[in-house]
């Protein structure tokens, strides 16, 4: 019954873990110039695909992960780094054009989803 509780933590264990301290990847920075909300969807660009072979390990992994759009927070979990580290990494990669950050909802960032969006969510959930 509580299997899921345990499974969640198992993700990052074992040989997949980075052998370097996380902030070494980002050159010690903990803030990206442009802070992306954690649910921002990232998608690999053509340039990223072309650059794949010459990319360093973690960037290569991110380019592969974002082949179909996933959120910043999911990238963090899948490459097993702190969310703050992932934000710096993907922020840099977006600037380099390797991935693109898809637009979030139009309007103020702290705005609640509007009726139209909520109706789409409701429809989507109902047809699950």
């Amino acid at each position, binding site marked *: *019954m*509580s*299997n*899921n*509780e345990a*499974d*969640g*933590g198992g*993700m*990052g264990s074992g040989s997949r873990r980075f052998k370097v301290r996380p902030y070494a990847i980002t050159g010690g920075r903990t803030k990206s110039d442009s802070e992306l*909300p*954690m*649910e*921002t*969807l990232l998608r690999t660009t053509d340039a990223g695909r072309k650059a794949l072979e010459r990319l360093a390990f973690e960037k290569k992994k991110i380019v592969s992960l974002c082949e179909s*759009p*996933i*959120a910043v*927070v*999911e990238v*963090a*979990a*899948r490459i097993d780094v*702190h*969310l*703050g580290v*992932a934000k710096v990494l993907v922020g840099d990669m977006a600037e380099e054009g390797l991935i693109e950050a*898809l*637009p*979030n*909802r*139009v*309007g103020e*960032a*702290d*705005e*609640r*989803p*509007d*009726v*139209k*969006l*909520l*109706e*789409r*969510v*409701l*429809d*989507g*959930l*109902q*047809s*699950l």
Partner: protein
Amino acid sequence: MVSNPSNTSQGADAGVSSNPLPVKIIISGGFAVGKTTFVGSISEIAPLTTEAAMTSVSEGVDDAGSAAPTKTTTTVAMDFGRITLGADLILYLFGTPGQERFHFMWDDLVRGAIGSIVLVDTTRLAECFPAIDYFEQLDVPFVVGVNCFHGEQHHDLEEVREALQVPAHVPMLTVDARDRASTKQALLELVQHALLVASQRG
């Protein structure tokens, strides 16, 4: 359906699947109340965990006797899952720890969220107080899900409402966090509630 496509995003009609939009719902509640189980019951991926910084404000009284909120940043683990809704929406479900006796400020998480399902264990009611206080203060739509295992329900929902002092307009329901049909229903109730709140807001 409201037919007023002009004032929202560009995305609804044009190029449907090209740019999916992320939406998020927060599953909160006390320690071991079943948040990750809830997420896992309906997520299309096995729940993942990431570590994130959380700024917490404790409401202590300092030595000089004045109320001095102190801010501390701690790293907390956060579990989440994902549900693809059609071709153009990706729903992330975040399970957040909220049992601490301070209000947690997790702006990045709550900003733009549809709302929250606050899970309640009737044997440890008080553990969900911080979450309820928090969402009430920030006007985040939420519903209260009373966890019932094996279909058992030890308390009347209205008794729980009274004990928690949850306002009448906040929906309360029973949830079996392990059961997909039950968690789906809870998500539907939250989105319907958020819709009502949004339409009243105009």
